[in-house]
């Protein structure tokens, strides 16, 4: 994730084909540093509600770095620092007074590798729920079932709820992680290359799931797989060397990109 960034020639302007109305998340002049090396340069990005926004770009361009600011997960590492503002419902989530625990309940995250907790399938989902909500046993069981259903996993695990989460296949584990995140009733789901460690069939199921999820929440997905971005996203942001080169409607971007760099990347000439 740590990258070598050469400052591109200033001045720089992102090409925008879309204006997002009432964004859920709005990154404004977002900069990021790993120690002394700057990884993001003045990113402006609006995430539309109940849509899927894809972040694409070559390795080391800052896709994940950008995403990891939204739930402030970067903070647990020494020397990582963000500048600028990221508004969530108009409030700057980078402001010092932000309740990070509450923020992370509202903005869930799925990682590249599935990471089931070392406990039963039921407990994997219930563990976080118990911390955030005052539920009775009955309500908790309902919440777990509901979340597993929403992650399209219930039918496969309903008789195995007390088996360890690690006993599932890779694709199932990833859906378990999605169920675990959904159980927090998040408004936004961040997905950092969620299918790159998973086989094609399981990937297709997760893509299908993302399309269902956007009926009730907002998804931001970082992906290396351009077909995936084209299949499931409404908006796409193309990152290169820590800057957002182009942001627009996915359909347009993949058929008729405005910036020559975007075209080069999409057609596979670099990256």
């Amino acid at each position: 994730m740590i990258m070598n960034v050469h400052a591109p020639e200033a001045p720089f302007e992102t090409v925008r084909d879309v204006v997002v109305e009432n964004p859920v998340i709005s990154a404004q002049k977002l900069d990021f540093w790993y120690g002394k090396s700057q990884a993001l340069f003045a990113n402006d990005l609006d995430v539309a509600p109940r849509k899927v926004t894809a972040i694409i770009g070559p390795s080391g361009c800052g896709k994940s770095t950008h995403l990891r600011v939204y739930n402030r997960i970067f903070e647990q590492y020494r020397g990582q620092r963000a500048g600028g503002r990221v508004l969530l419902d108009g409030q700057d989530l980078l402001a010092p007074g932000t309740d990070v625990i509450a923020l992370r309940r509202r903005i869930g995250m799925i990682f590249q590798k599935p990471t089931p907790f070392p406990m039963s399938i039921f407990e994997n989902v219930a563990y976080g729920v118990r911390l955030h909500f005052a539920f009775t046993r009955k309500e908790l069981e309902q919440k777990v079932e509901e979340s597993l259903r929403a992650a399209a996993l219930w039918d496969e695990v309903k008789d195995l709820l007390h088996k360890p989460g690690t006993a599932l296949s890779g694709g199932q584990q990833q859906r378990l992680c999605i169920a675990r995140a959904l159980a927090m009733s998040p408004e936004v789901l961040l997905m950092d290359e969620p299918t790159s460690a998973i086989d094609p069939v399981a990937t297709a199921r997760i893509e299908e799931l993302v399309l269902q999820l956007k009926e009730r929440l907002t998804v931001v997905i970082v992906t290396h797989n351009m077909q995936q971005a084209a299949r499931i996203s409404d908006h796409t942001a193309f990152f290169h060397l820590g800057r957002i080169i182009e942001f627009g409607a996915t359909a347009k971007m993949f058929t008729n990109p405005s910036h020559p760099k975007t075209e080069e990347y999409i057609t596979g000439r670099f990256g």
Partner: protein
Amino acid sequence: MTELRLSHRPATARKALDVFVRAFSVLSAALGIFFLFWILWVVLKKGHTVLSWSFFTSAPPSPGEGVGGIKYALVGTLKMTGLACLMGVPVGLFTGVWLAEFGRHGALASGVRFCVNLLMGIPSILVGLFAYTIIVLATPRHYSGNAGAFALAIIMLPTVARTAEDMLLLVPDALRESALALGIPRWRTITGILFRAARKGLLTGVLLSVFRVSGETAPLLFTALNNNFYPKNLEQPTANLTVTIYNYAMSPYDNWQRVAWGASLVIMAVLLGVTLILRFLLKERNR
């Protein structure tokens, strides 16, 4: 261009060296195992003669009269080791937590890590002397089981801390991140998820430290001392297995020497048994 020249060392010499290194490795391993079994055999042979139920339930014998039992020493050792665990394990565990989860690569953490390593290297007799100075000499009732437990706790601390740190560092950061990303507070992430993920290693560390102190004699010699009476509490000099072995083995009385061998066998058998049972349990649970 440099010319590629093959070395002319004959293949037979190379093969001979290979055979030699392999033979030496096998022999060394065999030698180690041989001594282990020799020790086990000697202890078993000399110790089994006194073993009976009453050996565990009787008071120590008078010189030259019967074998009596090791009840008092056994209870004293258990009590002191238990108290040492209560003091040493939590402090050691959370030292490891701090090193792995908070200090990490910082300068302060390297300093603490260095100190913990030093503490691990301090001879146990010095730890005993330390406990003697700050507890035995400073308390009106002098020698006590508490002082012994304190010395043992200090010996346990670095072992627990270092294994806890190593085991927590083996847990991938992805697991920490996914717990934190759910809005689980850091302390709950550590105690509820990381401890569980590393439980096998953490338990091993605790056991290693218990094993280490259960055979310690030097730190007890001038702290817990020994006693011929039942250890009702740890405020007084306290009977224990290792100092009993030390005193009895050096005595001129045949019955005392036999009790020393019996006590050795008991220590060995318990440690061996616990190791085996734990390995079995951990294997079962990991499936």
